[in-house]
């Protein structure tokens, strides 16, 4: 009898007859809401899951719960510098990287060159914040999957970086440290020493993390071959950062469209190779982050050695008025390509600031990754693209 079933019918659950009643069980698609308050959505995100049994047919993300009109605020500032603290709050776990992109954009608009010392300090800060961001991504990802301990290890290591930030600028989360034309103030005298000490401490920590989580059999079972995003689909969705590189695309703006002093520093681009499953699965995306932390340590070590002496601020007028024009500047933040499209009309206030938020774009590819997955895998897939809702909703 089964021979007459087609492949699809055999796989699909068919209405079963309830014994004794002669009635058939209803079988239809069901809609489940995941969020807005759900531990694995890392903030206020609602996913509307259309499921057929355990299988996910469609995922519809609903965003905007954390929308705070960043772009509207920018148009109502009295000057360009006032935007910097707001930029901090986009991706609040890696605030330095957000400032970095914005100040580069405004400096390019003003056609000013900042001292080399500033560039190096900015790169060190950006790479340290990449480590912080990836530690949070890895820690919370482990927790989503069910491993609580790595989270504590990650938070412990993150604390060391936050101490360095606090020592340099007084703040631990939102810094307002990079200013147009330089930095708010120079780093303290023991900065280099502290950063070196951190690098020395952190290398073995990565190995510890690998032993604890990355090559853990249960973790691999939960993430390998799950949520596969092929390279060409990833490019069509314009995803960036570890999510793109996890799909085997060797693309990093620090190398492919270099800015600041990155061309002077030696590092590699880690990308997904399908080591434990298929290229572009959750484990690949996860592992790219681990390798990126190693590369960041390498960059920081070089930058600290090469750090030149000098000023940390060039003289710029208090109210800057860039010539009318527009530009798009993209930088590689921990989450991916953060772009600022700034339009100036020649006044002291930006005419338009548009943010290309990497998390926003990466999240838009979530439905493509989730189709056909199990409900429990949605959690694993969402964690692997590492979103921060502050940036998705702006």
């Amino acid at each position, binding site marked *: 009898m089964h021979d007459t079933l087609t492949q699809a019918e055999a796989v699909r659950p068919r209405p079963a007859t309830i014994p004794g009643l002669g009635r058939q069980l209803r079988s239809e698609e069901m809609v489940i809401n995941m969020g807005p308050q759900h531990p694995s959505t890392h903030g206020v995100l609602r996913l509307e899951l259309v499921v057929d049994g355990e299988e996910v047919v469609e995922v519809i993300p609903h*965003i*905007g719960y954390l*929308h705070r*009109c960043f*772009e*509207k605020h920018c*148009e109502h500032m009295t000057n360009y510098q006032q935007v910097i603290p707001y930029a901090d709050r986009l991706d609040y776990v890696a605030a330095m990287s957000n400032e970095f992109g914005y100040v580069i954009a405004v400096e*390019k*608009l003003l056609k000013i060159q900042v001292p080399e010392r500033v560039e190096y300090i900015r790169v060190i800060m950006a790479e340290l914040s990449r480590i912080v961001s990836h530690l949070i991504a890895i820690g919370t990802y482990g927790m989503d999957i069910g491993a609580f301990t790595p989270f504590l290890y990650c938070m412990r290591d993150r604390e060391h970086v936050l101490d360095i930030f606090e020592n340099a600028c007084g703040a631990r989360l939102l810094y307002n440290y990079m200013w147009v034309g330089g930095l708010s103030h120079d780093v303290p005298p023991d900065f280099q020493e502290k950063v070196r000490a951190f690098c020395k401490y952190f290398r073995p920590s990565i190995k510890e993390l690998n032993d604890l989580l990355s090559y853990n059999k249960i973790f691999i079972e939960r993430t390998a071959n799950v949520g596969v995003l092929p390279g060409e*689909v990833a*490019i*069509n*969705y*314009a*995803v960036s950062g570890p999510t793109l590189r996890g799909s085997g*695309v060797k*693309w990093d703006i620090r190398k*492919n*469209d270099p800015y600041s002093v990155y061309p002077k520093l030696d590092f590699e681009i880690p990308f997904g190779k399908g080591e434990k499953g298929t290229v572009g699965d959750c484990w690949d995306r996860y592992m790219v982050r681990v390798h990126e932390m190693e590369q960041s340590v390498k960059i920081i070590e070089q930058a600290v050695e090469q750090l030149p002496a000098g000023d940390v601020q060039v003289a710029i007028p208090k109210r800057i008025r860039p010539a009318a*024009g*527009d*530009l*798009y500047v*993209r930088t590689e933040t921990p989450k991916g*390509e953060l*772009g600022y*499209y700034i*339009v100036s009309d020649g006044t002291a206030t930006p005419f*338009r600031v*548009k943010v*290309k938020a990497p998390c*926003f*774009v990466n999240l*838009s*590819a979530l439905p*493509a990754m989730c189709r056909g997955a199990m409900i429990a895998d949605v959690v694993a897939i969402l964690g692997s693209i590492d979103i921060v809702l502050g940036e998705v*909703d*702006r």
Partner: protein
Amino acid sequence: MIPQEILDSLKSQFGDAIVEAKLEGVIDPFIKIAPEKVKDVCYFLRDQEKMSFDTLNLLTGMDYTGGKLGVVYHLSSTKLQHKIVLKVEVPADNAHVQSVESVWKTANWHEREAYDMIGLIFDGHPDLRRILMPDDWEGHPLRKDYKVPEFYNGMKVPY
């Protein structure tokens, strides 16, 4: 490819659809195209081998004031590593632009945002609804003439 070559090849293919181009004296060279030809131009840019613009980095909705709205497309190629900017201008009272969702999937959310914030209508978009603002919000907040409503669903907006 340098922007001049891209412009020449677009001009020979589309002729009148290329409204204006500014390649010198600006930070990012741009080409302005007619709104009814957006989709064709984008398919051409993506599929021609020597163009290969496989990534839409950013799609921005603009309010240029004076009854003019616009869309700005930042394109780049991961294969050939070149970039170009496309601009489209439409009147505010008839703000229809062709959707490029079928060309680059990433445009889906960007176009929804441009609709939400500026009020541009993207013809051919599969699911054009608000994305950041609540579904029942009135008006488009990033329009330059936007007035913050006094009440939202009977609640006083506090500023």
